[in-house]
């Protein structure tokens, strides 16, 4: 049993409110990723879970027990820091052992724990080195080793991969995922990298300015973003957000989008609740279309719009085509060699993937 409940937690530094009523609840074995831009309060929240920052308001419960007033060592957590924070004068072995020594664990047990962890992380041959003699990836492993021997209820990771180069970051990401599968411990993981969030998480909390925008499974966050902010933050290239006017056709909605020098595009067959349809018919909305939901129109996929490509960027597996739609720049992800700059093209849209947002509140319309 190692659940985590963050219940209406607030944090203020003087008059500066950094976190405003954050509520998140996850179950045993979950991998929660706190995702958000720099300065949105992710580290602050993580430090509050760890007991390294005081809690201004609300409650944090680990395994059902309120930990607000417990010191870090009594919360049964282990933490991996962005800078790894290895003790510079100790060897790798001493680094991993330090916490166990403080808890007065017998030498034999300590040795066993160090061996298990270092085998798991493949750092056995590094045990007698100092942190300054390790590479970034090796330091990262040692920091994880130090956390693992604690056998905590909860692992806390603060941007553990942000100091690594791109290749190593992908490798370590896989490794962390494997570790989670193996140990099954609940993890809270902070990052501003949406790919890390998508690949690792079982639950993602997207944050902005100290407010949780959406808490859901990664695929749900991707497919059904709660608002325009989340839609733009998750996914690369970002979701296209296009102004349109909504029309009702029977039980489905049609988005009418202006295209410069061409007749307006009508994207029909968007499913929407009857109530929303009544409310928004004839009003302005924002239409969210992922780049991969465009395709070149064929006999089976009827064209929804005809556009002129401005720029075409081949990436290898596919080609990104940029064009104007509804007065904004829009990107489509198309198969290679199918798009040509300066040409016109007829595109089809997968309407089942379209998401609509209120044009004022920017929240999703269902």
């Amino acid at each position, binding site marked *: 049993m190692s659940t985590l409940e963050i219940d209406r937690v607030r944090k203020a530094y003087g008059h500066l409110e950094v976190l405003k009523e954050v509520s998140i609840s996850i179950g045993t074995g979950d991998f929660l990723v706190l995702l958000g831009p720099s300065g949105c309060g992710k580290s602050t929240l993580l430090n509050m879970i760890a007991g*390294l920052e005081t809690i201004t308001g609300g409650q944090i419960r680990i395994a059902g027990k309120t930990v607000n007033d417990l010191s870090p060592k009594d919360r049964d957590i282990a*933490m991996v820091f962005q*800078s790894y*924070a290895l*003790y510079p*004068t100790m060897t790798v072995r001493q680094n991993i052992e*330090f916490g166990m020594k403080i808890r007065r664990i017998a030498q034999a047990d300590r040795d066993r724990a160090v061996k298990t962890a270092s085998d798991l992380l493949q750092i056995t041959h590094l045990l007698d080195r100092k942190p300054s003699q390790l590479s970034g990836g090796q330091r990262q492993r040692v920091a994880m080793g130090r956390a693992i021997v604690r056998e905590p209820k909860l692992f806390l990771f603060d941007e553990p991969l942000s100091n690594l180069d791109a290749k190593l970051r992908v490798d370590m990401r896989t490794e962390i995922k494997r570790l989670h599968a193996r140990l099954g411990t609940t993890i809270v993981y902070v990052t501003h990298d949406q790919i890390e969030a998508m690949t690792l998480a079982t639950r993602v909390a997207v944050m902005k300015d100290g407010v949780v925008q959406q808490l859901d499974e990664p695929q749900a966050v991707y497919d059904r973003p709660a608002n325009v902010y989340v839609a733009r933050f998750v996914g690369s290239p970002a979701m296209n957000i296009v102004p349109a006017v909504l029309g009702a056709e029977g039980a489905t909605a049609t988005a009418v989008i202006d295209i410069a020098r061409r007749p307006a595009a009508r994207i029909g067959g968007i499913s929407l609740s009857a109530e929303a349809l009544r409310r928004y018919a004839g009003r302005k909305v924002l239409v969210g279309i992922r780049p991969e939901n465009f395709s070149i129109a064929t006999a089976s996929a009827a064209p929804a719009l005809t556009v002129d490509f401005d720029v075409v960027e081949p990436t290898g597996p596919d080609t990104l085509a940029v064009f104007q739609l509804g007065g904004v720049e829009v990107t489509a992800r198309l198969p290679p060699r199918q798009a040509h700059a300066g040409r016109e093209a007829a595109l089809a849209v997968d309407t089942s993937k379209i998401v609509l947002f209120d044009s004022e509140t920017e929240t999703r319309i269902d």
Partner: protein
Amino acid sequence: MAEALSQSGKARLGRLFVYGCLVVVALLYLMPLWVMVVTSLKPLDEIYGGSFIGVPKVVTLDAWRAAWSEACIGTECTGLKPYFVNSLLMVIPAVALSTGIGAINGYILTKWRFPGANFVFGLLLFGCFLPYQAILIPMARTLGLLGLAGSIPGLVAVHASYGICFTTLFFRNYFVSLPDELTKAAMVDGAGFFRIFWSVILPTSIPIIVVSCIWQFTQIWNDFLFGVSFTSGSSSPITVALNNIVNVTTGRKQYNVDMAAAMIAAIPTLVVYIVAGRYFVRGLTAGAVKG
């Protein structure tokens, strides 16, 4: 090719000039030391015979022996020896106390920040700029109240407290560059205030400990004003005794003994510098470049 040659020739000439200047300045700087050394090794008659800078004709250690154990200071003819011991008894605890307290202060001011920490640090910094003279009378009164007036422990207390401003400054500036995550990691590992200080912070601080010790050692060992103000007679530090040797002699001025005495008084700071000097430079610049 010819151009390249003349180019390198010009560079060599420039370097020659630089080295020449350095050598001249160094010789100029070493001149007094040379005079001290040769004078201390000459018999008094040779000095009064007019040889001041030249190599001694007769080398004798008599002056050194006299300075160490025979010269008269006031009414007692014990040489510098007991005062040298006094200085050691003063400097060792004073350096240890001021460095230790400075380290803890710096640790608290950077890793256990409290409301008003900056204000406290500002006050401590202010202490660095207090002139010695300004604290003489209040300090004398305080020592009197504590019953430490005129004693070596009293002098230790004065030096230790006066030095805390400097040592705190050293340690604070060094610890500021240590990442806070280090203390946080240790806290998560379950370490408390002193455990973190002792096992995590101090072992990384060798360079700044050396800096603090050298600085405090030279300041305290060379201090004259506090020594002459707060001690008397047989509890004086070596600087006060040296002054008495040089000033109180009647009859012919014993230049050779004076020089030997001055060098005896200077040797400990020189030794400290030579043994630990390379840490000094490293430690002073350690805060600037992140390690």
